[in-house]
């Protein structure tokens, strides 16, 4: 085929890729024209062109023609033409080709031709293509060829492997059945080539059906025995570099690994003999210096060792194998060292050879240090890991650590994990463990994953005895001028928690600790800085003397002005004073009790106590009544307002919010071995684990405290006057929540941003002990029903003491976090036994949305500018109501309105009678700006108008309006006659993420809404009805469910046109009231969604308030 050679050299002479492509295209055009031409091509030409196409394909170009010509070649009588045809098909025809029928026909002809060379070609083709169609056509034919007595040896070989290939792709089609025993007996075939080929098939079939092929074991053993004991020349051409039949030996040994040790003693004895011979031969001097000789010999040896390890029952052989591998560990051949390390890994797990493997530790360590090839070093590291136990853990971990300093980057992460696992698994003393992990961070900080350093913190927290050491070590480690950020993180945690343990030493006094940590601050990333800020809060708490310095440093720094909101907030939190932990306050309480004696604590006493607490904590002038508080709010609205901090766990807990949950993950992975409960006893983890319901950090969500409350006793329904009790507290934070003959409950609460802390004082008014006293805080059903949203309030409390002595008072602290807006107050259920009778009462806790108001000062100009900006219908709500009594003079009303939470702005409204307020409602996810104007008029009507804004910081958030009626009442009972009722609507912004549609309960129509368009139509009618005011509350709900469906559809990436449909639908419902957000928003689905909600909600706003509950 001179033409082919010329073409190949042309291609090789091409100077550039372009030239090559040009030449190839020219050739393809030529071949195409030849194939299409009128003149019939002769076989030779066809062969030549097919061969050229094949060459072009192998160069990496696509070939889309010529298949037919190749198939034609198959039926040629000339061997070379047939051969090229088959080659083309093997390389280029994929299994689903339509030509497969033609090809199968040609193969069938060749298989039945009884010409062995043609049969072999056909079998090779089947084996190369191996498609299911071929299996269907030939799977029953080939076993017959394989076992037929008159089949040539070479054909048998091809048939065996061809069948193997078909079995691999379509095991269901290859049924050995009656042929099984004849196939097994191929192991006895005189022709070594036939045995070599057949054994691959038998091994594969044995793996799948070990029982049917069981007889092969004894045959294999005897065959192996014959080979092993044969002289190197016996097997003629099957001897490879003086090694008899290495491939066959390896395959026999591999076949035996499919079975357990032979039960027949004679067979087993023979096999053990073989294995011993193989081990002996390894000690004999080589018969050739060629590497092929040693490779072939050792290939058999390694396979024999695999079998020995597989049996794992011959201690003698295992130890011999181990010694042999030990020799290889120092062999000059890199390949052998690699394989020895690899095999030893498996030997290390056998109880018989584990000790023997351990004796090679020095060699392996040496390999880790000196091997030039990283893949060999990797094997050495693996082996060290496998051979590690308590006796050598320190040595191995130390070696691995020192290797880490120079280790290849590709294996560092794995090495770090291994070191961490070994250090933990075999630690005998914790200080060693701490040292190891800190070293790990020092050496390979980048590769220390979070799991690893969380772990060391967990362990330190669990173990009192190591905490001081850890603090000391971490302090020393941080002295290094350049510390890895992970070290700073661990340092921040540990010093923040246990820095007090080393604070006695003047060299590591609190201030030194702080300065050390802070010296790293500026080099760290935002999450680490956040963590450090949390550590500073702990510092202020642990060492009050550092407070001034820390505040000073942070004030000078730019943290409060940092662009990152999280850091800003935390920095501000540090600047505020740390509230005392409840435990520490107990001394104050004890004092209080002593002074007042047993009995009820009145409101004023509570106020006293608070004042006292304020002074004790150096809090300066703490406003004790709401008027003063309002004044202070009005004058110092900055974050550093000198209020008694109400921060509890949140700033610290939120610090590693993500970290915390990961830590919990690690715990859950650790399974039962990790005593989660024990860990939870520690304060640190409790902070981290807010979302879990553990024994002492109760996330009170109606699940109740099973230990103290018998399950049979359901909480009582709220008291009928619970709402009245609640309303008292809308505008004030302290007072007596409840009182009857037995019990008095006092309340004291503080709020800042979206967090609150509430102190509950339970006073026993009788002289008899209350037994089984327990309290449960739960959020009412409505709040919990939205599974897709988080409960809007997160209330955490500690269980109270179960016994309340007569005349005594106990205290409970609730930490409250507002996650999103809410309308219903949480419920407080109290149960106790008084003289044997179970008392069960439920109250509403005075937690209302306005508690999370943050007052905002603004000038008249600002106010009205924003007022106007926020005057779109969906941003405005107005309510006119009649006060039950005459409107009181401004001076006395002021304090109530201010107590509401927003800043009362003087000199803003041109009408002096009006009250204007501004504030931001703070929830975890969002802030909602809120402007309020209260207009009393001469007819004694009060109109409240409310304007809402998105917070600037979260401007991208989507808007969803909700309506809430909140009742405001005058707080003082004796002035009940002066009560005014104000309704107003609150809107909240909900971040897009949490805006996922709630599970809808009432689909609008029963039909499945597949595309947005019919859905939009489905929404239309009820929407129009609703506009006409004809819709019931349940229909409104349905409408909103349907809207959710619609949005789900819109959010699917496949429905890109859905946005347009939605827009159209919205415009149909609400002509003339459409919003630019749909067209201008970058994210069409989100934009639509926001606008749509505004629309729907604005309809709901006009509906009666009673139906406008949370949707």
């Amino acid at each position, binding site marked *: 085929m001179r033409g082919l050679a010329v073409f*190949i050299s042309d291609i090789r002479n091409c100077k550039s890729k372009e030239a090559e492509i040009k030449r190839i295209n020219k050739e393809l055009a030529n071949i195409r024209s030849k194939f299409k031409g009128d003149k019939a091509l002769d076989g030779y030409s066809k062969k030549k062109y097919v061969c050229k196409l094949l060459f072009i394909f192998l160069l990496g170009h*696509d070939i889309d023609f010529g298949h037919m010509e190749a198939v034609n070649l198959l039926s040629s009588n000339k061997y*070379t033409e047939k051969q090229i045809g088959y080659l083309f098909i093997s390389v280029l025809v994929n299994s689903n080709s339509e030509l497969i029928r033609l090809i199968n026909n040609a193969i069938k002809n060749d298989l039945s031709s009884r010409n062995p060379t043609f049969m072999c070609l056909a079998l090779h083709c089947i084996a190369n293509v191996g498609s299911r169609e071929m299996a269907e056509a030939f799977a029953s034919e080939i076993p017959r060829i394989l076992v037929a007595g008159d089949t040539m040896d070479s054909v048998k070989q091809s048939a065996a*492997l061809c069948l193997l290939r078909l079995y691999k792709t379509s095991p269901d089609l290859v049924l050995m059945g009656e042929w099984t025993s004849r196939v097994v007996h191929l192991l006895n075939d005189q022709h070594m080539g036939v045995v070599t080929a057949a054994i691959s098939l038998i091994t594969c079939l044995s793996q799948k059906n070990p029982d049917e092929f069981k007889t092969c074991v004894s045959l294999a053993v005897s065959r192996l025995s014959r080979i092993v004991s044969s002289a190197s020349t016996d097997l003629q051409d099957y001897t490879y570099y003086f090694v008899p039949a290495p491939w066959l030996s390896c395959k026999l040994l591999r076949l035996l690994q499919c079975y357990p040790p032979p039960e027949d003693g004679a067979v087993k004895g023979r096999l053990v003999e073989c294995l011993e011979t193989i081990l002996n031969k390894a000690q004999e001097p080589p018969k050739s210096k060629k590497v092929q000789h040693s490779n072939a010999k050792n290939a058999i040896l390694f396979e024999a060792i695999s079998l020995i390890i597989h049996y794992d029952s011959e201690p003698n052989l295992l130890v011999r194998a181990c010694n042999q591998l030990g020799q290889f560990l120092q062999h000059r051949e*890199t*390949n052998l060292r690699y394989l020895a390390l690899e095999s030893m890994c498996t030997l290390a797990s056998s109880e018989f050879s584990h000790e023997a493997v351990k004796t090679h530790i020095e060699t392996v360590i040496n390999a880790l240090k000196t091997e030039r090839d990283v893949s060999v070093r990797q094997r050495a590291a693996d082996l060290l890991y496998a051979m590690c136990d308590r006796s050598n853990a320190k040595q191995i971990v130390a070696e691995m650590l020192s290797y880490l300093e120079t280790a290849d980057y590709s294996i560092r992460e794995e090495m770090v994990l291994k070191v961490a696992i070994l250090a933990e698994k075999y630690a005998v003393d914790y200080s060693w463990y701490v040292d190891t992990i800190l070293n790990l961070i020092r050496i390979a900080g980048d590769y220390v*994953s979070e799991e690893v350093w969380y772990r060391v913190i967990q362990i330190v927290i669990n173990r009192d005895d190591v905490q001081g050491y850890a603090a000391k070590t971490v302090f020393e480690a941080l002295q290094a001028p350049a510390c890895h950020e992970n070290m700073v993180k661990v340092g921040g945690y540990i010093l923040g928690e246990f820095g007090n343990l080393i604070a006695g030493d003047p060299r590591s006094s609190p201030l030194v600790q702080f300065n050390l940590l802070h010296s790293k601050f500026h080099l760290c990333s935002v999450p680490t800085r956040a963590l450090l800020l949390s550590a500073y809060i702990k510092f202020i708490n642990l060492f009050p003397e550092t407070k001034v310095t820390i505040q000073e440093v942070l004030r000078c720094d730019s943290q409060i002005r940092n662009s990152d909101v999280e850091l800003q907030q935390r920095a501000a939190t540090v600047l505020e004073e740390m509230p005392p932990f409840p435990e520490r306050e107990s001394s104050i309480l004890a004092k209080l009790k002593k002074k007042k004696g047993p009995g009820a604590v009145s409101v004023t006493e509570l106020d006293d106590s608070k004042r006292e607490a304020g002074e004790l904590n150096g809090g300066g002038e703490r406003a004790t009544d709401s008027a003063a508080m309002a004044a202070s709010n009005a004058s110092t609205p900055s974050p550093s307002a000198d209020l008694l901090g109400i921060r509890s766990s949140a700033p610290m807990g939120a610090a590693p919010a993500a970290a915390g949950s990961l830590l919990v993950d690690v715990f859950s992975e*650790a399974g039962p071995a990790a005593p989660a409960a024990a860990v939870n006893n520690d304060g640190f983890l409790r902070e981290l684990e807010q979302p879990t319901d553990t024994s002492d950090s109760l996330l009170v969500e109606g699940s109740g405290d099973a230990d103290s409350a018998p399950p049979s006793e359901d909480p009582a329904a709220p008291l009928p006057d619970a709402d009245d009790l609640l309303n008292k507290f809308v505008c004030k934070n302290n007072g007596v929540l409840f009182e009857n003959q037995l019990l008095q409950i006092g309340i004291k609460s503080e709020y800042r941003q979206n967090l609150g802390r509430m102190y509950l004082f339970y006073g026993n008014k009788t002289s008899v002990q209350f037994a089984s006293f327990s309290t449960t805080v739960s959020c009412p059903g409505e709040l919990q029903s939205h599974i897709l949203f988080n409960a809007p309030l997160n209330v955490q409390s500690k269980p109270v003491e179960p016994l309340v002595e007569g005349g005594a008072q106990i205290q409970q602290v609730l930490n409250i976090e507002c996650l999103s807006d809410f309308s219903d107050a949480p419920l407080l259920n109290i149960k106790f036994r008084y003289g044997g009778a179970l008392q069960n009462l439920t109250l509403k806790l005075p937690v209302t949305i306005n508690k999370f108001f943050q007052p905002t000062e603004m000038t008249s100009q600002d106010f009205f500018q924003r007022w106007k900006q926020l005057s779109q219908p969906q941003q405005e709500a107005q309510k006119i109501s009649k006060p039950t009594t005459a409107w009181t003079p401004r001076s006395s009303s002021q304090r109530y309105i201010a107590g509401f939470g927003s800043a009362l702005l003087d000199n803003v409204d041109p009408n002096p009678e009006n009250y204007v307020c501004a504030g931001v409602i703070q929830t975890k996810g969002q802030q909602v700006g809120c402007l309020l104007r209260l207009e009393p008029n001469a007819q004694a009507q009060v109109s409240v108008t409310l304007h809402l804004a998105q917070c600037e910081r979260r401007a991208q958030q989507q808007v969803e309006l909700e309506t809430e009626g909140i009742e405001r009442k005058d707080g003082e009972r004796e002035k009940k006659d002066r009560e005014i009722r104000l309704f107003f609507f609150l809107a909240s912004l909900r971040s897009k993420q949490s805006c996922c549609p709630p599970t809808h309960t009432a689909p609008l129509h029963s039909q499945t809404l597949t595309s947005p368009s019919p859905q939009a139509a489905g929404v239309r009618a009820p929407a129009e009805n609703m506009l006409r005011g004809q819709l019931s509350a349940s229909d409104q709900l349905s409408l909103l469910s349907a809207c959710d469906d619609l949005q789900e559809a819109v959010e699917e990436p496949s429905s890109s046109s859905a946005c347009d449909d939605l827009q159209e639908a919205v415009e149909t419902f609400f002509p003339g009231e459409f919003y630019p957000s749909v067209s201008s928003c970058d994210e069409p689905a989100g934009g639509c969604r926001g606008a749509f909600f505004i629309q729907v909600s604005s309809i709901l706003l006009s509906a009666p308030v009673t139906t406008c509950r949370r949707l």
Partner: protein
Amino acid sequence: MMVIASGAPVRVSASRCVLLVPRSLQRLFKMQFMLLFSRQGKLRLQKWYVPLSDKEKKKITRELVQTVLARKPKMCSFLEWRDLKIVYKRYASLYFCCAVEGQDNELITLEIIHRYVELLDKYFGSVCELDIIFNFEKAYFILDEFLLGGEAQETSKKNVLKAIEQADLLQENIDFQTRLFGGVMVPGLASEASGLFQT
């Protein structure tokens, strides 16, 4: 003893997660593919024993050629790549590279490569890269006689060559028996013309 000793998570490095074929199927395939490529990274022969798309084949080839060419001469002949073991050896300008299953016998695979080189050498008579370029179809035929479906079919050098020579005898075209590139000698890289055994 430490209490939290049980399961620290061990990460599987991402590079090892990609399976060529489903694990259940894969265990049955011993040798997955064989590649011959030059020191310049040019693919000279490819034989796939697992069903893969052309795209996957190209990707694997590209990655593997890069990996193997980056290795230094004295390094060991085995490396773990994805979840396979690569056994390779360089003969003159050509790299012979086999991918086998992790549990397979590396040394015997190395000798499979060597035996194939011996077969080529015997057939072409002091084989060089150019022989394989110009007679690629012969290289395929020899490989098929030696290895079928990734398993050794016939390990006797004599028997393999006998089969090939028988086939050559069947050729009616006597010209074809002469070595092709001898007829159209083209200037090539010196390394391509040097015998594989004369490293």
